[in-house]
């Protein structure tokens, strides 16, 4: 049986950063397992720029960002297996994996890092009536076809959903000669970054239809058109607003979900809001010695935050191997208050924090001129002015270790209050 100190599942930015950090913290026996033909994860298909502003202070493309970590991993001599799929893991940290060269493998690990990323919601997850012809793709699948295989998926395109991948693909398809007729968004605001709306839609005069959705797909073998309608405040289509768009392709950019079959099968406790494992300050899941980081925990919009969080997971996995984690002592829970939909990590052991506790969160709506208030056991410790908040943009907050140590620390709450209130 193969045996390693740390097995990392997934070779995207999360897995790469975790493995590198674990190695730098003194663990030599590490294996990264990746099911794809190369390392780098989803970044290899994200050829646009805007990655790395926080970590490298420059605007890199996805592949450039990935390559920096792949080169470092190789320099450090960390082992990895490509074209290898992890089937499941066991609570006692046995990893079952398979590839065509080694066949079925049972790998014994002292610690596991889950870094499987996320996948796109597909059409099944949302309900559109009509036929099921060819020409309906998720935006990410189209991105892979166009950017890696050089295969154009269509000529006249409608995009449903205004998340960043949808916006980026609207521009990409236009540059490659397709006509993007419209981007329809169910919500009254876009889930994507403003700069993407300007650079990807406005630059090319592509209309963004807010509070609109696709209600029907027409066509027998190939998409021939879609019907778009305006929706009311309950997101129900409004009769009489239907409009037909003749097109051969429909791209879906309707959200991402963490890829957690492996985590769920082994019985890791999940957070129903993030659809990822419940983790603590060390990025450790409810099962001791199993850590998680990146999009498998919660969907990130900036890869820089993925790297930051994954370094923490790698460092703590190394600490765990060396028996340096302080797991005694009290546990503080983080609680999303008014206006906040979730906070990661969900649990905190103050003794185990180095200097500051980093919390990531998302708000539940678009807000202007708000105060973000952090309280510990009901006592306010910090208040930050926020001029602009949107669900599409993750927020990060730091709390000093001292603030956590001198309370009973039962609960950290973060909520939004209007300025002046």
């Amino acid at each position, binding site marked *: 049986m193969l045996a390693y100190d740390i097995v990392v599942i997934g070779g995207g930015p999360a897995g790469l950063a975790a493995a590198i950090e674990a190695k730098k913290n003194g663990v030599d026996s590490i294996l990264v397992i990746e099911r794809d*033909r*190369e390392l780098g994860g989803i970044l*290899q298909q994200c*050829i*646009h*720029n805007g990655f790395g502003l926080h970590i490298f202070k420059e*605007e890199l*493309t*996805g*592949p*450039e960002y*990935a*390559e920096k970590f792949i080169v470092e991993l190789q320099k450090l001599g960390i082992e990895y297996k490509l074209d290898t799929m992890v089937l499941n893991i066991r609570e006692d940290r046995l990893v079952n994996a398979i590839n065509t060269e080694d066949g079925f493998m049972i790998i014994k690990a002292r610690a596991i890092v889950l870094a499987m990323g996320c996948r796109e919601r597909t059409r099944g997850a949302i309900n559109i009536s009509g036929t099921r012809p060819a020409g309906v793709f998720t935006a990410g699948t189209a991105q892979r076809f*166009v*950017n*890696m*295989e*050089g*295969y154009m998926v269509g000529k006249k395109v409608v995009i449903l959903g205004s998340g960043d991948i949808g916006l980026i693909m609207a521009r*990409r398809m236009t*540059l*490659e000669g397709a006509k993007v007729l419209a981007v329809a968004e169910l919500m009254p605001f876009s889930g994507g*970054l*403003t*700069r993407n*709306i*300007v*650079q990807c839609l*406005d*630059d090319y005069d592509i209309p963004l239809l807010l509070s609109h959705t696709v209600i029907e797909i027409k066509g027998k073998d190939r998409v021939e058109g879609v019907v778009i309608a305006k929706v009311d405040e309950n997101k129900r289509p409004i009769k009489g607003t239907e409009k037909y768009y003749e097109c051969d392709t429909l791209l879906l950019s309707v959200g991402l979900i963490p890829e957690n079959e492996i985590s769920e099968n082994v019985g890791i406790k999940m957070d129903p809001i993030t659809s990822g494992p419940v983790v603590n300050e060390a990025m450790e899941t409810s099962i001791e010695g199993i850590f998680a980081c990146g999009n498998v925990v919660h969907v990130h919009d900036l890869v820089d935050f993925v790297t930051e969080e994954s370094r923490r997971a790698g460092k703590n996995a190394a600490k765990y191997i060396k028996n340096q984690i302080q797991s005694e002592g009290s546990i503080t829970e983080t609680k999303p208050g008014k206006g906040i939909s979730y906070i990661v990590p969900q649990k905190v052991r103050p003794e185990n924090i180095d200097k500051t506790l980093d919390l990531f969160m998302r708000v539940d709506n678009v807000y202007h001129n708000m105060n973000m208030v952090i309280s510990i056991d009901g006592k306010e410790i910090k208040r930050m002015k926020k*001029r*602009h908040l949107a669900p599409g*943009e993750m927020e990060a907050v730091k709390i000093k270790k001292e603030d956590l140590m001198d309370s009973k620390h039962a609960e950290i709450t973060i909520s939004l209050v209007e300025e002046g209130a």
Partner: protein
Amino acid sequence: MKAKEMICIVCPLGCHIKVLKNDGVYNVTENKCLRGKEYGIKELTNPIRVLTTTVKIKDALLNRLPVKTKEAIPKHKVIKCMEVINSIEIKSPISVGEVIVENILGTGVDVVASRSM
């Protein structure tokens, strides 16, 4: 002249700014900071963008190599640059940062590889 309205994209705030030209002098309003003023003037006089796309590659792991303009180029040249980049084919091996098209369309900007392949 009528004020031109636009959204500043320098930071996530996305201020809706107004740019007005008066006797050759640009006046920017509703920007919350100075970077917004600079952006507004630039956007009106010479809007620039970084172009990221792919180029055909032979004997490589994939059929396409991602490339980018090393600096931002004038927005109105983006489509013409696409035509140039789509007309060429290169051969593996290529390393990240390698120049694929020098000084594209006389912009003074090189098109470089976004990864090794």
